């Protein structure tokens, strides 16, 4: 039995088809990542799954309840971490959790009993009575996560949970999400950070212009869609080097700004040649999810 299942989901705004026929399925206990550039339709997909907007086509089930018809009941078992923090600035940390718990029809005593462990989870011990404006960005994010757990949900939706956080704060969030997965929670994550997706998700889908272009385990996707080795070459002469030497000796070569990316199964010759070039800097590495992402969604900016 799956927690979430969507078939042929569609949503248009005017002439723009923001979600153009996608299928999704989330099994209990898995972490599924929806990746895509800005404007790919990730947030719209999440809002459709939560039953906040009416799809133009397709069917959604959350915990076997039809969405949006019975979405409200289904949300009883769901926690949501939205893209932009919307914790209540008029309340303390503790009051935020208390008031949010009421929206789930939880008893006051029940919520109060949960607050200490939620604060511990969020690394906000001793902050129960702090006002929101005294919290750092990372703390606010963690409070939003704790708030999403107030109803002990089975499924947690996270919309770009670490956007705008510093590395320390991001790692702490990742560690906590790992803990939730070990407790058996199911996670539906959207992100445009490839390392985040690679680290957390057992399965992911890359979405662009409303469609899912590929889906699978991170390693599989890398294996299936990209050459295993990458040589990045930087500097003024990089482009000429590529024309004269690199392009012919790699399977694929891409060029953006002052950087050349050479994709290959065997980087031996490239590295040997670059060793002798004092004027060029280079990096030899394994292909990663970001390479797959850029190959499939292109390098041009999305605003």
């Amino acid at each position, binding site marked *: 039995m799956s927690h979430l299942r969507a078939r042929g989901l569609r949503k248009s*705004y005017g002439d723009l088809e923001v979600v153009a026929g996608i299928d999704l399925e989330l099994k209990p206990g898995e972490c599924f990542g929806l990746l895509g550039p800005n404007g790919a339709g990730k947030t719209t997909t999440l809002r459709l799954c*939560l039953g*906040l*907007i*009416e799809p133009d086509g397709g069917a959604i089930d959350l915990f076997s309840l039809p969405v*949006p018809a019975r979405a*409200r*009941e289904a*949300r*009883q078992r769901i926690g*949501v971490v*939205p893209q*932009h923090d*919307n*914790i*209540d*600035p*008029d*309340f303390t940390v503790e*009051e935020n959790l208390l*008031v*949010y718990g*009421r*929206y*789930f*029809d939880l008893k006051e005593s029940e919520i109060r009993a949960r607050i200490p462990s939620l604060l511990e989870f969020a690394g906000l011990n001793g902050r129960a009575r702090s006002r929101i404006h005294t919290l750092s960005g990372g703390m606010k994010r963690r409070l939003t996560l704790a708030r999403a757990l107030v*109803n002990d949900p089975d499924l947690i939706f996270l919309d770009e949970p670490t956007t705008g956080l510093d590395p320390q704060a991001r790692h702490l969030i990742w560690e906590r999400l790992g803990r939730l997965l070990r407790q058996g929670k199911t996670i539906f994550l959207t992100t445009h950070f490839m390392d985040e997706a690679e680290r957390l998700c057992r399965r992911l889908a890359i979405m662009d212009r409303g469609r899912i272009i590929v889906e699978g385990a991170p390693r599989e996707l890398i294996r299936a869609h990209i050459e295993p080795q990458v040589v990045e070459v930087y500097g003024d002469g990089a482009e000429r080097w590529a024309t004269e030497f690199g392009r012919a000796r790699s399977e694929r070569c891409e060029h953006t700004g002052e950087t050349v990316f050479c994709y290959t199964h065997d980087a031996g010759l490239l590295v040997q040649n670059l060793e002798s070039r004092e004027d060029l800097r280079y990096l030899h590495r394994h292909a990663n999810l970001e390479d797959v992402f850029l190959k499939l969604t292109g390098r041009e900016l999305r605003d």
Partner: protein
Amino acid sequence: MTAKHLALPAFSLRHLHVWRRNALVWRKLAIPSMLGNLADPLLYMLGLGYGLGAMLSDVGGMPYVAFLASGIVCSSTMMSASFEAMYSGFSRMHVQKTWDAIINAPVTLDDVLLGEAVWAASKSVLSGMAVLLVAAALGLTQSALALWVIPVVFMTGLAFASMGLIMTAVSPSYDFFMYYFTLAITPMMLLCGVFFPLERLPGAVQAVAQVLPLTHAVALARPLMQGSVPADAALHLAVLVAYAAVSFYLALLLTRRRLLK
């Protein structure tokens, strides 16, 4: 606008969670909030009532200050409900995204809006009651019938809260509310019998005033505070209920269009 946006409201007791959320915020600022609510109407009532009233003989068969007190109970309710539904409502909807957070939980937007309307009406009852208490203390009420002003004030608050929520639903910013105050609230303040009897106005203006909600609130509150049962009470009440119901429905579908897209 989709068919779903036009659906009739579906309410549940969960709207009380929203009401309680707002009440908890209010509790922290209760004293300054009450003083602010009281200062303005009291200045009108005492300044105009005794100052201007000293130069007038009876107005509408009662001392001017008593006449004015019943009008101010209603206008103060109108102001309080409108401010809460617009400025505070807009903060929660647009600036703080509080409503977005709530509808991610198992609470529908219908209940959020009902909670907001009932909350704004409740808060306006406090404003109306504060003026009523002062009026009673000054001996400007005549009998226990004045207690019936409480439900009248609540219904008035609900009508103005719902009208304010329409503005909130379509507003791009706080500045927008000035139009509503200039074009709707101020004219009602002046034309609906708060400061002087409606009959003093030219016929055409009277006709306009007859369809405005504040006129009907005053028509109920004034006799009640004077110790008599209002004429056509059912009609006046029906107008207030209609304003509340129609405005609430409009506010709801505009808010659905704004947030559920």
